């Protein structure tokens, strides 16, 4: 290879982790195939998603090239800005579809909860790293407060899906940071005991979703419709599926939001159990590679952040597939790298960019 080409290749590929990038790309290609079918062959939809993916990969590249210690410096300001904007939403936010999620900044509207998906684990990882040598129970309590405040604000919007994801992400950091098993057991007991309290603060529509999950038939044209139709789609797919572009549930318009949150129903109907198994394996490959990078990360900050990214990705996938197949309530969580839409794609690829950065900047830190 010509030295110049090699240099260019190193510039663009130097900080990208090939196994992770490969698995991510495979998932994205799968996503485009399903999207083509789900959108009834709309090339416009597919090409707009390709554009989203380009942007996401660009963001991934930028973060892969950003050394972790820069991220450490960003942790506190990003968290504070994010939290301020969440408060702004609570007081001045725009109401769209009955939920107050958007903040109008004059030039553009943003959803601050999306920022918190990265900001919360970043902040917690930074916090634990800072007090690494002297970690006590007090530090875990403070970390829990740092986590619960934004989660509470987001759940109030109400945006249960995002709140659950961020809460899970924060819990992963606290768990990985070494919270003692005795406290974990105590919390588990307390959590179980406080379920009735949680029930009482849920919004009506959130309760409805939980109730509908227990018995979808109760509201077949309303809240239960999504679950009933998507379960039929998954079940009727059988072992080998009905074949690409041939899902009757999909193409007769029975599946709602079939290019976004319910795209897995389309996949499942057309590719069957075999397809589902392969998709799970693909997801596992991504998770395994991400976990390997995390396990070998040089600093506590990198380990905790990497762990949170890895496990949040898993949570996305699990919650989405669980909701489509009818074992979890319907919360607005997209299937990562597959669902149509740019926001979650960018957030996820940003996370993977950080993982790649952790991996490729390791030597620099050690030397």
């Amino acid at each position: 290879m010509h030295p110049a080409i090699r240099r260019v290749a190193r510039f663009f590929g130097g900080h990208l982790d090939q196994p992770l990038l490969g698995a991510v790309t495979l998932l994205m290609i799968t996503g485009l195939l399903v999207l083509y079918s789900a959108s009834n062959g709309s090339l416009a939809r597919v090409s707009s998603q390709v554009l989203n993916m380009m942007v996401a990969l660009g963001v991934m590249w930028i973060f892969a090239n950003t050394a972790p210690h820069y991220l450490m410096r960003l942790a506190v300001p990003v968290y504070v800005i994010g939290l301020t904007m969440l408060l702004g939403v609570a007081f001045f936010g725009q109401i769209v579809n009955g939920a107050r999620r958007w903040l109008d900044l004059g030039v553009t509207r943003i959803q601050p909860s999306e920022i918190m998906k990265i900001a919360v684990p970043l902040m917690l990882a930074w916090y634990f790293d800072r007090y690494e040598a002297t970690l006590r129970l007090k530090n875990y309590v403070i970390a829990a407060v740092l986590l619960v405040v934004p989660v509470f604000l987001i759940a109030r919007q109400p945006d249960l899906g995002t709140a659950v994801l961020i809460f899970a992400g924060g819990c992963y950091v606290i768990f990985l940071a070494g919270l003692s098993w005795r406290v974990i057991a105590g919390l588990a007991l307390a959590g179980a005991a406080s379920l009735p309290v949680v029930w009482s603060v849920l919004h009506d529509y959130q309760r409805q979703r939980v109730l509908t999950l227990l018995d979808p038939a109760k509201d077949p044209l309303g809240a239960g419709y999504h679950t009933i139709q998507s379960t039929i789609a998954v079940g009727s797919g059988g072992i080998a599926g009905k074949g690409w572009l041939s899902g009757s549930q999909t193409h007769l318009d029975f599946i709602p939001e079939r290019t976004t949150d319910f795209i897995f129903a389309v996949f499942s109907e057309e590719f069957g159990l075999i397809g589902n198994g392969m998709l799970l394996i693909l997801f596992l490959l991504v998770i395994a590679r991400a976990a390997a990078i995390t396990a070998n990360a040089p600093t506590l900050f990198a380990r905790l952040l990497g762990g949170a990214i890895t496990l949040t990705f898993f949570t996305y996938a699990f919650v989405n597939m669980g909701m489509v197949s009818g074992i979890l309530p319907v919360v607005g969580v997209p299937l990562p790298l597959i669902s149509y839409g740019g926001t979650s794609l960018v957030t996820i690829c940003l996370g993977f960019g950080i993982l790649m950065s952790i991996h490729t900047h390791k030597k620099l830190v050690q030397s």
Partner: protein
Amino acid sequence: MSELNITPGVELRDAERELHHFRLRLGIASTFVLVMFGLLFARFLYLQIFMHDHYHTLAEANRISILPIVPNRGIIVDRNGVVLATNYSAYTLEITPSKIESLDATIAELETLVEITARDKRRFKKLLEESKRFESLPIRTRLTDEEIARFAANRYRFPGVDVRARLFREYPQGELFSHVIGHIGRVSQKDLDRLESEERLSNYRGTDYIGKTGLEYSYEDHLHGTTGVEQVEVDSGGRAVRSLSRTSPISGSNLVLKLDARLQEVVYRAFGERRGALVAIEPATGGVLAFVSKPGFDPNLFVDGIDQENWNELNNSPDKPMVNRAMNGTYPPGSTFKPFMALAALFTGKRTPSQAISDPGYYNHGGHHFRDDKVGGHGIVDMYKSIVVSCDTYYYQLANDLGIDAISRFMGHLGFGARTGIDIAGESTGVLPSREWKMRRFKQKWYSGETISIGIGQGYNSYTPLQLAAATATLANDGVMFRPHIVNYVEDVHKRERTPIEPKPWRTLDVKREHIAIVRNALVGVNREGTGARAFAGTPYTHAGKTGTAQVIGMKAGEKYVESRVAERLRDHALFIAYAPADKPTIALAVIVENSGFGARAAAPIARQVFDYWLLGKEPAKPAKDEDDAPSH
């Protein structure tokens, strides 16, 4: 920090232990991931293998699709059966944007088969912006048989393009009824939200259009009908192959109006090119006989989506054709207010009919001279004369004697400054000045000087022509008030049932009959020997009226209003209220002609043409001409 005391070896071991701990936790988390994915896989196994037959059957059953059948919208006719809004069935060429790759290329291709005008394209573009991409949107309506045949032969080239039979709304009378009938338009997101909150959304499945303004809006419930349902079996492509069951839709009810289309046309023609409004009411029922706001617009433009160019033209025109002047335009009533003031005087006992004043040509209040229009005054003026010659001084003094509280209380009873309750939504309230109103509006207390010009219908007074017409009808009906209503009855086309609207009086004014008779006698005098005499010369029927002039700009003391010196849009508005026949009125009206000067000159001749048609069946050949008599009001 204790690091300094610890040997490097110890620290390294510590770090390694930390790492070990972390990896242990990560291992536990990974196991959790595997278990959860295992759980998912178990769920897939259950659904896709053990329950496959069950769900397979359900998916097959899903091939039965439930289709809405849109009901026919009710039609609207006038009192004589003249059709004002109807439906026609036509073939349209429709595009579903989500199924098309390049809209421009497709439209260009279609143009070789079917004529598509620039207006069609503009309209389609606007529709596209307002609709969801998977909706089927019309690019061309009213296809000819030949065009249908040509497209059918080439249909295979155009996936996502279809010919459909649709019902369209048509307003045969065009702009004549634009502000009464209103128009329908495509169901918007806002409409959907409203329907959902009212739990009527299911009845609108499959419906593309909904009433947006006028009667089409306020009688939407009656006009729309009940959507039917058809269960059909669909093939794998989603096309219906067989009908399984069918519940027929129930057509919407028809509206039969009190309005007379011919009379409306007479009014429209009488206005000519001038702007203004006229509301004519049948005093004995409150039924609206004519309801005109000039200029109007063609409601047919809105039916299948208005294009940007026409929309801008309507919206930006200085004549404001979209404003319903009859119920949203508010004007000072000018001297047409005086008969009601006289009634207030009799009601409160502040004046007797014979009590007279000597009019010097002005009224002095706190050193300020309120001028009468006639220099030198009208001499000795009693109540009759005050109305007939429209003496300002009499009413300046009266307003002062009554005070603002008594005036606003009485005028409130007559319906001024409040919605009349007409069956078209969106009516304005106007302004009935009072202490409370001024405090609310300006955070200021009322000054007694402000009461004076209230007496001659100026100052803060501001009412809709509809309110003025309703008050005139009340006077003509001896104090028995009806809510004005356009619709006579709603006719259920299936059950042949007629539901009349507002057949009973709303309330009766607490005023003595003989007091009303005194005022009515003076109004007859106005048309016989007063300011309205010229316009009503030589009529074979009896009538009563009152002229008025509403100032658009204020005049400084000592300054004289000279029409030719004032820009056209700042000239006074001409007003006239009237009813006929004088003893047993069958029609009462209020008319305003914008920027046309004195009421006697511009507005009274229009009223004359209306009465001539209503009572004699005489149709005028030309717009009403201004009377060139001496300035009086």
